[in-house]
């Protein structure tokens, strides 16, 4: 007993951690192996039987995780682009060109005090950011990112998207109500009024598209936009008015400038997020940028061809049989970086006399990697479907996000009554007109063809 406790006392902190972790991991591994040996086939069968559920759980988990880095990227983009538009420099200290700035931002949120104001409703206050973030992330479950790369594909995907996306307002109202702050309350009520009003033109603007497509499945809608391989197939060219209404209404749905009344800091401080701090505030913050990503993504999916390339891309299969190369392949793989680095480094070292040999080697190695990475991407692009799809999808989405950021840097905010008047007096009638004209055109074409 004494010997044991003396040994324990002599261990340093990492030593103590290892002394706890190693036996724990060993026990867990043994337990896992035993479970797999005993019930492995049964579990595998269980997974195969419930593949849809497993897929759903996995996809939700992956989406919840990948949206944090996506939010980081969008936040960094916004900071840098608005800084350039404002003739400022923007983040530049953390990481190259300030790229790690939002990571530090997130760490700062983690370290801040988790604060619940006096007389706030603790349960509703705690769950509001969870509701907001999870609805934002879950509505992305049906987005087709690339051929074969989607969470779920079912024939009510578009309806699901609007239904879950509309749940955000519940979270914002919860946050506004539970904070016990009048600014928060006003912000929550503003967001409720705004989102409920804009939900209607948002949904109506895509009904015309749905009539044309004949389906609510996002995957099928994307497929239909790539029939000829050229961008003229995109629904943006058959539903230009629908795209315009959808884009405006989606801007209001995501509370972005010029419709960002819910967090108008000149009027109601920070709206529903006034009393939040630490990680709870961070989740509101992330949810806002995730929403920007998602509305850009859904606009791309519905109107701008989703993962379809704007022009036909040659598709080849490069068949390489590694077995034929034998030992030669091994040597090639081992020597290629060395030879490549030397090849790229040699001209730099020889042509510039002031270059140190090790600088030349580093630059050569980086250049080699860039070239090989580019070649590998090209190969993957032409031969793997989803790489090409993801490339175009992400490219288009971030182009749209740039438009949102651009609007934020340029436009002032509209007033709440102007906002409502715009929704009910302009967007709604125009959306109805669009629907009417589309339906009429479909009927007339049917009659003509018949």
């Amino acid at each position, binding site marked *: 007993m004494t010997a044991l406790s003396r040994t324990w006392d002599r261990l340093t902190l990492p030593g103590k951690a290892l002394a706890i972790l190693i036996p724990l991991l060993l026990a867990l591994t043994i337990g896992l192996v035993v479970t797999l040996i005993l019930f492995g086939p049964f579990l595998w069968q269980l997974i195969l039987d419930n593949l849809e559920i497993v897929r759903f759980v996995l996809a939700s988990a992956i989406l919840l995780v990948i949206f944090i880095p996506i939010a980081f990227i969008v936040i960094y983009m916004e900071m840098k682009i608005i800084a350039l538009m404002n003739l400022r420099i923007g983040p530049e200290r953390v990481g190259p060109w300030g790229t790690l700035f939002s990571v530090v931002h997130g760490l700062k949120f983690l370290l801040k005090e988790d604060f619940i104001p006096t007389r706030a409703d603790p349960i509703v206050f705690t769950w509001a950011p969870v509701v907001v973030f999870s609805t934002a992330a879950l509505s992305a479950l049906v987005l087709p990112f690339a051929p074969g790369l989607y969470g779920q594909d079912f024939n009510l995907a578009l309806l699901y998207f609007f239904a879950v996306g509309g749940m955000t307002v519940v979270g914002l109202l919860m946050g506004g109500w539970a904070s016990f702050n009048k600014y928060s309350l006003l912000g929550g009520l503003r967001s409720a009024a705004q989102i409920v009003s804009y939900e209607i033109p948002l949904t109506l603007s895509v009904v015309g598209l749905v009539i044309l497509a004949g389906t609510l499945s996002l995957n099928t809608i994307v497929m239909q936009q790539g029939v000829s391989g050229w961008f003229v197939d995109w629904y943006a060219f058959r539903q230009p008015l629908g795209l315009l209404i959808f884009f405006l209404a989606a801007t209001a749905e995501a509370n972005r400038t010029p419709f960002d009344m819910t967090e108008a800091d000149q009027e109601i401080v920070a709206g529903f997020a006034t009393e939040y701090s630490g990680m709870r505030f961070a989740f509101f913050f992330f949810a806002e940028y995730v929403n920007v990503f998602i509305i850009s993504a859904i606009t791309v999916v519905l109107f701008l061809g989703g993962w379809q390339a704007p022009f036909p891309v040659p598709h080849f299969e490069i068949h390489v049989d590694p077995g034929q190369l034998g030992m030669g392949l091994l040597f090639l793989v081992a020597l290629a970086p060395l030879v490549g680095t030397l090849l790229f480094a040699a001209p730099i070292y020889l042509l510039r006399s002031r270059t140190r040999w090790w600088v030349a080697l580093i630059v050569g190695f980086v250049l080699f990697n860039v070239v090989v990475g580019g070649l590998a991407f090209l190969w993957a692009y032409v031969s793997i479907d989803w790489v090409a799809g993801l490339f175009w999808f992400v490219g288009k989405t971030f182009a749209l996000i740039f438009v949102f950021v651009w609007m934020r840097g340029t*436009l002032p905010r509209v007033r709440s009554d102007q906002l409502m008047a715009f929704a009910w007096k302009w967007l709604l009638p125009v959306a109805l007109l669009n629907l009417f004209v589309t339906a009429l055109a479909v009927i007339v074409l049917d009659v003509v063809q018949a």
Partner: protein
Amino acid sequence: MTTETPPRRFPVGTHPSADDPRILVHDDYEAFEPVPPYPPRTEREAEFYTLGEGELLLNVGPQHPSTHGVLRVVLKLEGERVVDIDPVLGYLHRGVEKLCENADYHQTISQVDPLEYISSLFCEWTPVLAYEKLLDVEVPRRAEYIRVLSAELNRIASHALFMGWFALDLGGLTPILYSFIERDEIVEMLAALTGQRMLFNYFRIGGVNGDLNHEFMSRLGDWMSRATTQIEANIGLLNENEILVRRAAGMGVMDAETALRWCMTGPNLRATGVPYDIRRAHPYSVYPELEFDIPTKTEGDSLARYLLRAEEIKQSLRIIDQCLERMPDGPIMAKLPRLLRPRPGRAWAAIEGPRGLYGVYAISDGTDQPFRLKIHDPSFLHLGAVGMLLPGNLLADTMAIMASLDPVMGGVDK
């Protein structure tokens, strides 16, 4: 986690102050309401803090992001519509007038500098002008021209800042940074002339502190060569913005009669159509020799006030051009004893600042300190009109209407 709300720290009636009838806070719940913790002192206060059906009190400031300093306003809202307001002033009160009365005449200049910290030169100019009237001194012409030149530069800096803030209060992020470019260049060149960026402390009784120097002149020439195009571009950035124009037009409308009744001066009065400018109405310094127009608008709304200031920037540029052209040679200070003892008497001096009439009423009793110094500041009067302009507007417009009157809290609280 329980579903109950947290227990009250002081259940109703048990707060230590419950027995004291003068203190209304019985409970920490009531402490969150912006109600003063004493019984109403006036009928007006009693009426304001009695809430009707569906009304709520919203405390704005003194740490609100856009109250332009430390102004505190209690708004009575019905939904988002403002019903009534109760401004609470005095967070920046220093007792400047009393400080000046207990120091000699020269020390007034550094005391009044931070009054309207955005346009310090005008705050200096007024008491200096009043003291010169008391002393009956002739200011050298070169000094007068330098005063006009630097003051007009300061006016441009102040108006440029106003235009940025106004757009920011309407939600535009970018214009403030563009207008800060202009302001920064002007402030830098004034720093080369006076030694300070913000509180210049430059005018002296009988002249100015330093002559024009090379750095100031080169910076000024450099800036003047591109000022017109740059300012035009900045104004175009906002004037052609549909959202801003639609919001600002018809916001906070005031007719000429009301404006005169509320003692409005400066751009806020001229935006209602009254061409009253002290530089022309009661000329001082060398303004009678200079050519410039007095722009007026007739709408009297926030957009008119904004556009008028844009016009005034252009007129100020004209004045600066003429000053540089006619700048005479000569001394920059009148010959005066070091310790000033004016004859017993009274003097009133008023000048046209970027916000309106800056006035000083000084009484001398023959000693080396002013007997009484009354500082008249336009910001205070303009802020008074807010109580008339705000009710009936939406919460979103309150800050923008306040910003369109361009008050500076240092001058309001003195």
